[in-house]
């Protein structure tokens, strides 16, 4: 008689195989649509509705979306302008605001902070109309500045909240040290607080950039022609002639690419800040 096989080993092997299938199923759900877009962006309109993997790839779609009438280059410039502008204004403001909330004791501090954090939870659809009317009054409709202002209102509360957490973790000791060594408040923030809280600041800058880059509803309502951003350009590809899938896929790739590059370069920083939290 051969030895009976160990039932424990059997079940654990089955469980492992089952687990792997589950994991691949989930990965597939996430990655297949992206793969589909990648492939579609390289297909001719004729091939779009076929699922075949063998086709002759072409860059034509990318050429088309950058040409008239789509002018995706302008939209890309708008998106970059709005996203970078928002981050460049939001992050310095958020740093000084977070510092004030973290270090100063003033009347109404708690209420103000809760108010700022709570403002994140108001759905965009509710405030979009007042913004529209306001910009109309100010003559800012369809400008990139208007989009920067709107995005600031989304991005600032989040950044203040996040950066405050990191500044809270900076020991007060080292700031007092710097005060006595002869530093002014501005110098302390610039040379002591910002470098020690840098992982958090970078993280919130990346997050702000991503939010702004993908922002849809405000851009849809306030822009018409001059300030159209990439997500809106995508919708414009649903025309009377039907949905131009191959062009949408190409535009989608162009939207996703900067995000992809950004995440690659700052991933290390990002993970460090998430796992580390405080600086010692």
């Amino acid at each position: 008689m051969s030895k009976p096989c160990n039932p424990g080993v059997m079940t654990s092997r089955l469980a492992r195989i089952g687990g792997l299938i589950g994991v691949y199923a989930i990965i597939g759900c996430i990655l297949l649509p992206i793969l589909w877009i990648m492939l579609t962006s390289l297909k001719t309109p004729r091939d779009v509705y076929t699922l075949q993997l063998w086709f002759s790839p072409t860059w034509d779609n990318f050429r088309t979306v950058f040409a008239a009438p789509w002018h995706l280059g302008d939209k890309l410039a708008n998106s970059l302008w709005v996203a970078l502008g928002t981050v460049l204004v939001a992050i310095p403001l958020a740093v000084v605001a977070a510092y004030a909330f973290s270090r100063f004791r003033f009347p109404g501090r708690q209420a103000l902070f809760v108010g700022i954090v709570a403002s994140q939870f108001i759905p965009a659809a509710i405030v979009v109309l007042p913004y529209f009317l306001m910009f109309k009054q100010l003559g800012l409709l369809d400008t990139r500045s208007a989009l920067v202002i709107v995005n600031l209102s989304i991005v600032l509360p989040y950044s203040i909240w996040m950066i405050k957490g990191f500044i809270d973790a900076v020991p007060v000791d080292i700031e007092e040290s710097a005060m006595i060594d002869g530093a002014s408040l501005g110098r302390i923030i610039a040379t002591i607080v910002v470098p020690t809280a840098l992982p958090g600041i970078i993280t919130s800058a990346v997050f702000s950039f991503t939010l702004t880059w993908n922002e849809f509803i405000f851009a849809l309502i306030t822009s018409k022609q001059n300030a159209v951003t990439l997500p809106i350009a995508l919708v414009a590809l649903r025309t009377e002639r039907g949905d131009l899938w191959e062009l949408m896929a190409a535009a989608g790739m162009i939207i996703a690419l900067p995000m992809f590059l950004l995440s690659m370069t700052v991933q290390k920083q990002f993970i460090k800040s998430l796992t580390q939290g405080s600086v010692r």
Partner: protein
Amino acid sequence: MTTLRLQGIDKKWDGFHAVKNLDLQIEDREFLVLLGPSGCGKTTTMRMIAGLEEPTSGDLYFDAQRVNGIAPRLRDVSMVFQNYGLYPHMTVRDNIAYPLKLRRQPAAEIEAAVQRAAGRVELQHLLQRRPAELSGGQRQRVALARSIVRKPRVFLMDEPLSNLDAKLRGTMRAELRHLARELEVTTVYVTHDQVEAMTLATRVAIMKEGVLQQIDTPENIYNRPANAFVAGFIGSPAMNLLHGDGDQERFLVGGGHVVAVPPPHAGKLILGVRPEDVQLAREPGTANLLGEVYAFELLGDNTLVTVKLEGQYFVAKLEKGERVKEGDPIAFCIRPERLYWFDAHSGERIDQ
């Protein structure tokens, strides 16, 4: 070259009176130690001198200049913090150079000053490191180097040795004493450790619950404590303080233990005896305190015998060769000229 003067300084937070009507003059080039248990207001006093806290009332002078309301960076003091306060993102070199960079000194001068300061505390080989890569003692020395890289009007040190292990503390103590002499800068040093206070100070200021108890040389603090609190705080082990009643001839502790010494007056009193002023009574008739050994400890260079008298402990420091057993009867001889008497209510010492 700075004399510090604190006049009627009070510091209150809501509901808490940290420092009460403090008058203190710290002479030029003096090494003053602020000593007391935690919460006595010593650190608060130092932080007010630094400008990190503002007094609620009272005046603070550097020489003739009133410095109330002047920002720390304009007071030209340097400070060593208990947790060192090093900049974690800078190298040792940059940490030490930071005060000079803020003063916009030329790079060559900064480098020379950094080398000099680092040399004084033997850090030259660690200048490239970050604080996280240093041991506690090394971090301590970086903090010290940063405070001596320029010549401030006043040195402030807030329990700088309390995070070090016992052996290193001893070495650094001697180091600090040497540095302070060499640099000739007025120094204020905060500690709760009476050994540090006694060894470092030219004068010691003892505080309790925000009130200055006594300010004097270490010798006078030891020999002529102003009150029972000061007496009990200085010395290792601390002075024995026995509560009891005096009559014409004797002092009665608790219910009946008799100490055969004449008190200054009848009534409630506190008797103070330093453990080192007690000997074993070898000849009959010389004993003035009898008891039973409660605990016996070998310290190496001497021995400690504890006796329990009506719920109060009495410690005697004896020769290293003495051996007694717990439970044995024991007879002590206290030299009457080395006794202290304190008022039972105010705690003030009674001059004899």
